[in-house]
């Protein structure tokens, strides 16, 4: 076959079909891992790695959408209690028995409109961080607060360092491609992309009293 003219290659189509392929392969890999013994430390690590590979790929796509101004959320009504239950089950599988994962829910509305996949990704990132810094306990919570839904992940580690709380870390991360700062940047982007009429979502980071743990909260209108 004659190679086509360089100008005729549709880079976008090529990229899209490759990403499609990677996702399919990744799914097969993840399902294969899930059929293996879940107590083995290697399998647990491999699962985490899969998650991280996927995470990076989704970030790449989000960056592209952000760049081309095509980021569009899929706001569908979900039951927050179910969402948190599912999420806790997934997080527990990821933690593989090394941490206690607790679920906490207060005054939850019957339904809330949010982009399930993106919010899950943002929370999952917080869980990845917590798995690194927590001593033994991670609490995943959901609460209705007036006209917002608050979804949170907190741990019993040493809390966020000051530059993170001041968002300096996120800015630095974008310049140097630093892992955790990048995750927070995306979480903030996802939260802020959630809007309802004139209200906008937010990412709230703070530490528990006496720096006894970090609290990551997504506030969704």
């Amino acid at each position, binding site marked *: 076959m004659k190679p086509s003219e360089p100008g005729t290659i549709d880079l976008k189509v090529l990229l899209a079909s490759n*990403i499609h392929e990677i996702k*399919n392969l990744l*799914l097969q890999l*993840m*399902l294969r891992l899930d059929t293996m013994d879940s107590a083995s430390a290697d399998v647990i690590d491999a699962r985490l790695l899969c998650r991280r590979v996927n995470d990076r790929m989704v970030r790449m796509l989000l960056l592209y959408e952000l760049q081309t101004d095509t980021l569009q959320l899929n706001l569908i009504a979900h039951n927050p209690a179910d969402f948190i*239950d599912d999420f806790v089950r997934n997080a527990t599988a990821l933690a593989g028995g090394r941490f206690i994962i607790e679920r906490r829910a207060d005054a939850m509305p019957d339904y809330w409109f949010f982009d399930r996949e993106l919010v899950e990704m943002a929370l999952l990132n917080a869980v990845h961080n917590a798995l690194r810094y927590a001593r033994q306990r991670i609490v995943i919570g959901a609460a209705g607060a007036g006209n917002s839904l608050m979804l949170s992940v907190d741990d019993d580690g040493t809390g966020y360092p000051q530059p993170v709380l001041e968002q300096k870390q996120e800015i630095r991360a974008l310049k140097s491609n630093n892992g955790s700062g990048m995750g927070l940047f995306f979480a903030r982007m996802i939260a802020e992309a959630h809007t309802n009429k004139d209200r906008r979502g937010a990412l709230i980071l703070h530490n528990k009293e006496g720096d006894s743990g970090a609290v990551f909260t997504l506030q969704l209108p």
Partner: protein
Amino acid sequence: MNDFSKKRALIIDDSPAMCSSLRMTLNNFGITRCETSNSANEAIFRIRQREFDIIVCDYCLGEGSDGQQILEQLRRSAMIAQSVVFLMVTAERDYEKVVSCAEFAPDDYLLKPFTAETICVRLERIFEKKLQFAQLYQLIADGKAEQALAECDRMLALKNKFAMDLIRMKGELLIALNRPDAAKKLYEEIIAARAIPWARLGLAKSLNLAGEPEAAIETLELVIGETPHYLEAYDTLARTHENQGNLQLAQEILEKAVAVSPQSLSRQSAMGEIAYRNGDLAKAAKAFGTVVDKGKYSYFRNHKDFISLSRVLMEEGKHDTALCTIADARRNFDSTPELDLASSVMESLIHHAGRETVQSGQALSRALEIKAQHGLSLADSIAVDLAKVCFLNGKEEEARELVKEMISNFYEDEKIQSAVRGMLDDIGRSGESQALIDNSINEVIKLNNEGVMRAKNGDLAGSVDLLVTASKRMPQNVQVALNAAQALIVESDRNGWNGENMRLAAQLLANHAEQHGNLEKFQKISRLHKDIRLKYGIAGNETK
């Protein structure tokens, strides 16, 4: 946790490797009865063969078909029950846009990649919902909209996590029950909290129902502006323009919808139809050509598209191609009286256009023979064509009889009247059209009135006789059928139980239940039927 071991699953994915991965995963949580298909057609073949409880389908199936099309075709043709779980699997975040605006959404969807845990949890959730909604689905399937509405309200009064789904169903029921004011209020309340596209569409439908087409159009344009991929909004907008008599605008809107989603063949077909009515033969030919071509290997292809294509080709003067298309239809479909009739009518028309009078006459004789033999009474363009070709072949009496039959069967249908009028204009008989149409309508009204009058004057037997005969002559005419049913039931009420009459009444009601079950008069007579049955202590003999 659900017991999955009794469930039967079908996995649809074009990649065999993916199929086996998914099958292994399902096996691991107990679903051992698991089949796989690598293409849409194979999947449909399997679904026709046996019932599945769970269908896991990949969105991207390659080569011009996607999972959403399969889902819509399955749900629209009621090939799978509401209780069947349909789970879409997709690598495309874009699919979310599709699903948020789909007329038929899957029970849930999973973005690749996902864990075995996730698919298991999602399946459990879906079954939980199906269980809660089982009664509601049954009521809707039985056409009991009123009771379904009450069930929605009952479920909403309890704290329910599926409240949004219930509200959405409630809105659709209110529209089906022709209660625009209540529907409008419901949708406006949702929109006040959040501008959800389906609520806007529902509002537009309520406005249409309330006789406010301008407001409906404004709402629909807003929806399309904000969610340009919301195809159902285009369909509704096109229909609104069509009802307003703006066929040109309707065509433009459908063209836009086709551009957004060229995959949907039913919409292409609707576009072709309206382009044909607008005299835009080139676009009509292109649309029907696409439908015939792309649908060639689909289970859901329809011979009517071949017929429509051939009609357009004939009018473009391409007589040979038009005949070839009919031959194609005969080759591609099992022979049914409908197909045979439609093909013969077209052949007769094409031959006539090509001045081959003998062949035209032969084809026409065949068509009339099939019609007489099977007593088909058709509401579509083929019926109009048949009358036309009768006129053209000098069979005026038959032609007038056909027109009369059409008009009296569908005498409240503006579209059919205008199609008949157009046909008569076409063959230079405009002068006859008003008299022919008016006479047919008047005859029905006279007959109806006469029947009702006889009953009032105490001649119940005479009334039954007249109305039952009339209802046999024009089986699609709902008013005649309802009056006949009423006369039959009243006869039993007055003169004692008459099993045969009551069965006939039930049959007449059943014939119109699907399309007119929500009419007030229909429900009144259904209740009357039940009351009289109870009066004589006869158990329900619901005639299907």
